[in-house]
């Protein structure tokens, strides 16, 4: 928040310069493919994406059907054993990737749309609009995220759509601040001023000149936001506030907790979903960081970037938009 604004602004200016420096077309090649960390992250994500999309053809069993005894240990018939219902764990984990990644993606998009719009409006128009929007952002920032999410999920009901919207609505603030800073920097560029002088309208300038400049940063931010949203889904679901009829990794963890997996010594019902979440978050973090590092060469030598450590929503969210 305000206290690190000097630092914040400093690094955001640096970021803006970084964007300016690299041409957009070469961006992906230069920043992602040349980076081992990013390639690894992308590869992992590709595997999970494949599982999510082609799950129905890969799953050995119907994940909703009882296909074995309750808590059967791993065997050749059930590679990851069965859960408290007698459903095949491997099929469940594959099916879970669909919802977890889906919620993560769509919630991040919601956050990106809200945050991006607020950021662009605020940065581009400045003045009273800016003050007003940033005040709101400040207030939303001090609301404790996890408690609010839980309360909202409890109040609004538990459909998947609601969860996506709730997560999106809570996590747009950091995007808004980031984009605002970037837009302010772009706004002052010579070519933008020239376009304005030539009589281009606001919307034309925004869509033609500002948005393209902001896009890479927005995408990097969204990638990190996907991780935040996947986390958030597991928390909401774990506390019994998720959509009960869908299978997600969060739900599988909850099933293990509620189904007394510990007493029944069924480690195979507890471990896999959590391992999947960990791997995916790790991969997303690597990709997101690589993009950010690519945007700002200075960060590579360890320039303090507050944003990078704001990933985790639950514990010690460094709330510093």
């Amino acid at each position, binding site marked *: 928040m305000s206290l690190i604004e000097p630092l914040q602004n400093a690094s955001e200016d640096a970021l803006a310069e970084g964007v300016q420096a690299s041409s957009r077309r070469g961006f992906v090649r230069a920043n992602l493919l040349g980076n081992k960390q990013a390639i690894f992250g992308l590869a992992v994500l590709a595997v999970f994406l494949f599982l999510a999309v082609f799950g129905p053809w890969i799953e050995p069993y119907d994940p*909703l*059907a*009882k296909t074995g005894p*309750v808590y059967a240990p791993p065997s050749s018939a059930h590679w990851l054993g069965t859960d*408290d*219902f*007698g459903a095949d764990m491997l099929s469940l984990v594959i099916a879970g990737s669909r919802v977890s990644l889906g919620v993560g993606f769509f919630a991040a998009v919601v956050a990106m749309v809200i945050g991006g719009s607020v950021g662009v409006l605020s940065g581009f128009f400045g003045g009273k609009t800016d003050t007003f929007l940033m005040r709101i952002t400040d207030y939303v920032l001090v609301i404790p995220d996890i408690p609010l999410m839980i309360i909202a999920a*409890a109040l609004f*009901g*538990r459909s998947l759509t609601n969860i996506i919207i709730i997560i999106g609505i809570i996590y747009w603030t950091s995007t808004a601040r980031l984009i605002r800073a970037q837009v302010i920097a772009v706004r002052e560029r010579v070519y933008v001023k020239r376009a304005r002088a030539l009589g281009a309208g606001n919307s034309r300038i925004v869509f033609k000149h500002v948005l393209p400049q902001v896009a890479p940063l927005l995408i990097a931010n969204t990638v990190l936001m996907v991780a935040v949203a996947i986390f958030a889904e597991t928390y909401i679901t774990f506390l*019994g506030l998720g959509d*009960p*009829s869908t299978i997600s990794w969060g739900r599988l963890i909850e*099933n293990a*907790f*509620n*189904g*007394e997996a*510990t*007493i*029944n*010594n069924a480690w195979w019902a507890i471990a896999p979903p959590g391992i999947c979440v960990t791997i995916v978050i790790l991969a997303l973090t690597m990709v997101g960081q690589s993009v950010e590092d690519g945007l700002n060469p200075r960060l590579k030598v360890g320039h303090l970037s507050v944003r990078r450590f704001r990933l985790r929503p639950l514990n010690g969210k460094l709330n510093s938009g």
Partner: protein
Amino acid sequence: MRTRNVVGTIAAFAVLTAVVAVLVGTGTAGARTAKKESTGSASSSGVLRIGTVNYIDSLNPFNYIESQAYNSMMMIYPQLVQYSPGYKFQGDWASSWKVSAKGKNWTFKLRPNTTWSDGQPMTAADAAWTINTTVKYKNDATAVVAASLAHVKKAIAVNPTTLVIQYEAPVGNVLAQLEQLFILPQHVWQKYVGTNGKGLKTFHPELHLPIVSGGAYTIEQYEKKGTTAFKPAPNFYGPKSNSQGIALTYYTNSDAVIADLKAGQIDWADQVPFKAVNAVKKAKNVVVTTIPGSETTNITWNSNPVKPKNRELLNPALKRALSMCVDRDQIIDVVFAGYASKVESIVGHISPLENPRLGPTRYDCGAANRMLDQLGLKRGSNGIRVVAATTGKYAQSEHPMTYEIVTPTSTDFNMDRSFAIVKAGFAKLGVKVTQKVGGDATASYAIETGNCSGPVAKQYTGFDIAMWDWVGYLDPDFMLSVVTKAQWCSWSDTGANNPAYDKLYNLQGVTVNPVFRKAIVYKMQKIVYDNFYYTQLTNHEAIDAHAKGWTNFHPELNGYSKLYYTSPRQS
């Protein structure tokens, strides 16, 4: 140097945190030790340590919700009568009783020379005061207790050991009702009556320790979400506690109860989760007891005759067909690990007046499908059956058979799994259901009843189907009452409104002859079954587990007798 200051601050901050941790950690503990030293008892052996997942929310009989609170109040307050191990009535504070010829006056002879734990005499005047005060404010502050004093005119203390209760009409189940009445010390409670009785509801005896008790135990330590200590009351009139005391500890998850039981940290788990039973049975030092339980699970159908939508669900034939494709054996296997049986009657297996000639509802999806075909419910292109449009006062347009099922979160079994099995069964019949998680009992109930402060016409119009459970009693009165119109917005979760049934309910209440009453009660159960207000699913067993060194448990008396706590002994 500025930098030094920063390091200093960090260090100071760390030290401060540590100090806070230590202070808070010891603060409460230190206070407690001081108190303990003053009471000081001999050794830890002989204290019965109970682990539970239900907590004592209050010790005020006018204002509580949890069943654990009811059980605890039973231990500290005198009752006139209670159940014996064979579920016969026996005297608690009353040693004998008789009823007048016309059945309206009941005279109770109380045990002599009894005192409250603070030394004040405990006499019939306390009982008369409790009853008369409850009756006086029955529409407001004392409503919770007043139900057990239905039809009571007044109570008179003839002398310190004689109490007369006058009824407006002869009542068939007086003892079963009075068994639920806790007698309060008048000298403690009187000052809270005020002008309107409201203070009775807001007084919290558990915050004024030690509690003035007249029962088997006194309470010197109360922690809502922690441990509550029951100390045997030296001047208790009844059979004394065999243990040196009871320590009841609340756990939020049953895993931990079992872990602590196995580790010898507690002696008794009053409820073992179904999924854990088989694992617990393998433990060497633990004895698992299963007894027939009083809890039944069901599919609750909105039976409000004027419900505006999905009125096809009022048709018993349709509900019968749907019920026939619910695999109850799978529910018993997956949800209850085998520790449950099928049930048909609303009163459940616990009641000696359960009608054995209902159903049973067979599991036969093929027959169910044919029944639905005969009802003219054709399958649409997506396989979901379609209800044809109707005309008349309650006209509805053509619509597919897709419904929402409301489920509460506060059940002691895995509701999500139960729902999944029902859903799979309905799907085979071309009926699609989705789960709507309603929150705890309170919140789910609100969904069923609708806005109870609004117009009656709007009540019981917001849901179609729910899944829930009922905890029955020995006497079927309570279970039979829940489908009466009078219970709308109080206990009714179906919105059933059947005047003929309600008439029978009132009749059984004032039928003193047991044979006649049984006939009426059987008939009422058949009405509930035939109309499918509920599809009764399972009656699960009550499972508890205790450490090997202990004997004399009476798990069947949970909520029925002081023996539940006083009987267990360490061998």
